[in-house]
């Protein structure tokens, strides 16, 4: 096996030094009944070239060369070449969690930069070193709010990513944390603030909203904050489209921001690995889950970074920890850090403007279902959703996400996304196909 660096001669030498003649003797202490008395039923190992071929074959079974109008939490953004150049360096790729600060300053410094950039983007005071993804950041934020307020109930907007809400429910179910949903306005697609007011009570720990929301709309964070804070609850603001932060007002009224950075040079990769974040106000630092890097000095007085405030974490606090998270998404967070560095202050703005322009070009041809202001995705009522998407597939286009699976009341609608990667010609085809499929009253340009 090519990954095993010993010659048979060395192996025998080492066995001899251990006082063992056969490798099997190393396992002699295992109870007989526990041992596998046969070889694993797996094919023999294959060469590097065959491995490449195997995955090329699998890739060929996927769709190839389609233009894609799917967003819904996962976005097709260009990945600058520098990103893979940096994360392919063995020093970043093949190092462990930076517990030994003296020989991990590379990782620690980039995480410190990451935490800083996330604060700058979100308007929060502190950000952690990453969560698994946006979906698991949501229950972590809810649990954090429960600890911070001493209350127990959670109110979540239906316009938060449906799969994030499912994850929230899985976590909440066994913690005596009731979760209730509130609606969206069927005209604007923004929060139904009256429904929120009605459902608020003094036992509510967190109100969870998303912006841009699942329908792509810049939502009413300020109003949600007023209502949440009025009853002593924290406001958790979720984002799935990080590029929007290049142009949209940061959710400064939030107490906790729980987001997904997939848009920052993280390939869609059929759903992961991505990187989530939790950012918050200074006063809630000790309730935060996950790793944090802090600045300090070394014994020679030089600036140095280290993991800090670990008394929140499982390896110190065990069952009293703020979370059970250990391994996070460090390398993926580094991708996002390189992305933010490459685009920078101006580039992220320009990128956001291009996304806005593309989506609004498409929306100008097919009327969005909701009137709220949208960033790079929007809902369109198209009637026969599956028929439309079938027609588009024939034209090598993956259409928008059919919403019926998540919102029965929107079974006639799709969520369309356009990014800087979306070509005008493809948008024209999509618009054309939608307009032709629809009856004139449903869609007017």
């Amino acid at each position: 096996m090519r990954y095993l660096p010993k010659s048979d001669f060395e192996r025998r030498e080492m066995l001899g030094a251990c006082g063992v003649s056969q490798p099997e003797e190393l396992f002699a202490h295992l109870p007989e009944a526990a041992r596998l008395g046969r070889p694993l039923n797996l094919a023999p190992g294959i060469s590097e070239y065959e491995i490449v071929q195997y995955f090329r074959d699998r890739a060929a079974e996927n769709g190839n060369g389609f233009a894609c109008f799917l967003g819904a939490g996962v976005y097709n953004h260009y990945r600058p070449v520098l990103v893979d150049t940096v994360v392919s360096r063995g020093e970043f790729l093949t190092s462990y969690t930076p517990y030994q600060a003296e020989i991990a300053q590379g990782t620690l410094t980039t995480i410190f930069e990451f935490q800083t950039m996330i604060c700058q983007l979100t308007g929060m005071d502190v950000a952690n070193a990453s969560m698994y993804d946006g979906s698991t950041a949501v229950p972590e934020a809810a649990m954090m709010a429960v600890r911070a307020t001493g209350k127990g109930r959670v109110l979540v907007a239906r316009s938060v990513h449906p799969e994030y809400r499912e994850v929230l429910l899985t976590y909440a179910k066994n913690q005596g944390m009731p979760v209730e949903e509130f609606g969206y306005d069927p005209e604007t697609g923004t929060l139904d603030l009256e429904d929120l007011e009605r459902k608020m009570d003094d036992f509510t720990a967190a109100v969870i909203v998303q912006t841009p929301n699942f329908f792509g709309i810049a939502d009413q964070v300020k109003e949600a904050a007023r209502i949440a804070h009025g009853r002593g609850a924290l406001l958790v603001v979720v984002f799935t489209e990080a590029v929007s932060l290049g142009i949209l007002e940061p959710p400064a009224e939030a107490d906790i921001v729980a987001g997904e950075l997939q848009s920052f040079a993280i390939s869609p990769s059929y759903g992961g690995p991505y990187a989530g974040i939790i950012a918050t106000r200074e006063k809630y630092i000790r309730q935060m889950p996950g790793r944090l890097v802090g600045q300090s000095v070394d014994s020679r007085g030089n600036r140095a970074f280290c993991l800090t405030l670990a008394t929140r974490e499982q390896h110190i606090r065990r069952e009293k920890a703020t979370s059970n998270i250990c391994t996070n998404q460090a390398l993926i967070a580094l991708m996002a850090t390189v992305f933010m560095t490459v685009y920078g202050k101006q580039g992220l703005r320009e990128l956001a403007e291009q996304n806005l322009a593309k989506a609004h070009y498409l929306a100008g041809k097919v009327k969005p279902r909701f009137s709220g202001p949208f960033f790079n995705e929007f809902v369109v009522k198209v009637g026969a959703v599956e028929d439309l998407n079938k027609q588009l597939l024939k034209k090598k286009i993956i259409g928008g996400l059919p919403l019926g699976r998540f919102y029965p009341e929107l079974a006639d609608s799709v969520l369309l996304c356009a990014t800087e990667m979306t070509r005008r010609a493809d948008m024209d085809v999509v618009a054309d196909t939608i307009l032709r499929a629809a009856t004139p009253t449903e869609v007017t340009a």
Partner: protein
Amino acid sequence: MINKVRPHLSQNELLVFERSSPGKKAYQLPELDVPAVDAAEALGAANVRAEIEGFPEISEVEAIRHFTRLSTWNYAIDYGMYPLGSCTMKYNPRINEVVARTEALAWAHPYQPAALAQGSMAVMAQLEAALAEITGMDAVTLQPAAGAHGELTGILLIRALLEKRGNPRKKILIPDSAHGTNPATAAIAGYAVQNIPSSATGVLDVSALAQIVDKDVAALMVTNPNTLGVFEENIIQAAEILHKKGAMLYMDGANMNALVGIARPGDFGVDVMHLNLHKTFSTPHGGGGPGAGPVAVKKVLEPFLPAPRLKRTGKKWAWDYNRKRSIGRVKAYYGNFGVLVRALAYILAHGGPGLRNATVDAVLNAVYIRKRLEAYYDLPYSQANMHEVVFSDHRQAKLGVHTGDIAKRLIDYGFHPYTVSFPLIVHGALMIEPTETEGKHEIDQFIEAMISIAQEIETDPQLVKTAPHGTRTSRVDEVTAARKPVLRWKPA
């Protein structure tokens, strides 16, 4: 005698914010092929932000130098042995990085129609099947993102099954040698944690277990081999005790590198377990993640697995969302797919016989280190060890030198430290896991370094206590970092 390393120049580098200057760029966007849009008009002026204060502004060449210089301040597997116990820091094959970037896999959107995702689904199905064979279990979910996430999934599965049987019960039993994620997970799953003391030989005390297991116990969470690197010799009896009282056996599979091809948890009584693909199956740690924590279960738990599940209809793969008894989702989409690709590439490269050979070498390396260091360091538990060995600083502590100091001195010899102060049942633990991907030369150098440090402690303990001496960063003041947290850069 330090012969693995020599000092060399290392470049200083400021934070990216301190290198920024207004107007510098490392990007260029294409010309827009549609009309530009006025942001204030499209979004409402109140929704449009001011510029992102402090955000980086540097050029492309400065960006690459920035990250390259920072990278050289890290130790890495590519530099040498990384003997962190419990972490299985083995070589990360580069072919895995290449295949994970295969275009139509890396750019597959999780919501693209199943007909256009058959290849991605086939990869997942093949990995599920391979992991089921390796663990001896009946079904596998690939949804969890890491070990701790797998633990949570597993405990929720147990809760769901017990609930269906009428009573979810109250407690999870956890040996005192367990990793911190185990009790933290039990708490999040809504269970009380009862710590159980290990026997004098560091393994499960089955007669004590028989006394403790009652109608309130939902499960025992056990790591096997345990965190001493010792196989739980009474695991089959433990499973019987639990099952007799209607409780389940959860196995933390972080140490599967000692068992692959040799013994299967499904054959020794385990009901549910997780694997850490970023340990046993070589996917890179990347400075802390990403990982993947698949969960393998026996048939009785299969109906409760997170939705959706892969299913075969005719000749096609599909996602089955109609899973009435499912515990629900633990993560959006289907799992850390890119990590799963790398793990499958690792399994394909080894094949069945290769995986077993890897296990043999992993155990051989650890046993060899033990034999050669036993004379110099105290071995608190004398059972046969498997893939890792745990010493204590008992002898060195008498001279005022502790495990943390020895670890720091190892850095001067060109090695990453072992795991310090874990497991908690060993006072002053030195937990060493070489993995199979270290050759004899590297291991001998490591052993010589450890012996040399033991001798230094006799002659010049201060030298060890103030280590490392050769690094660009000396010991970091972690106390001040925690007392006065500075968690982000701010302009001066």
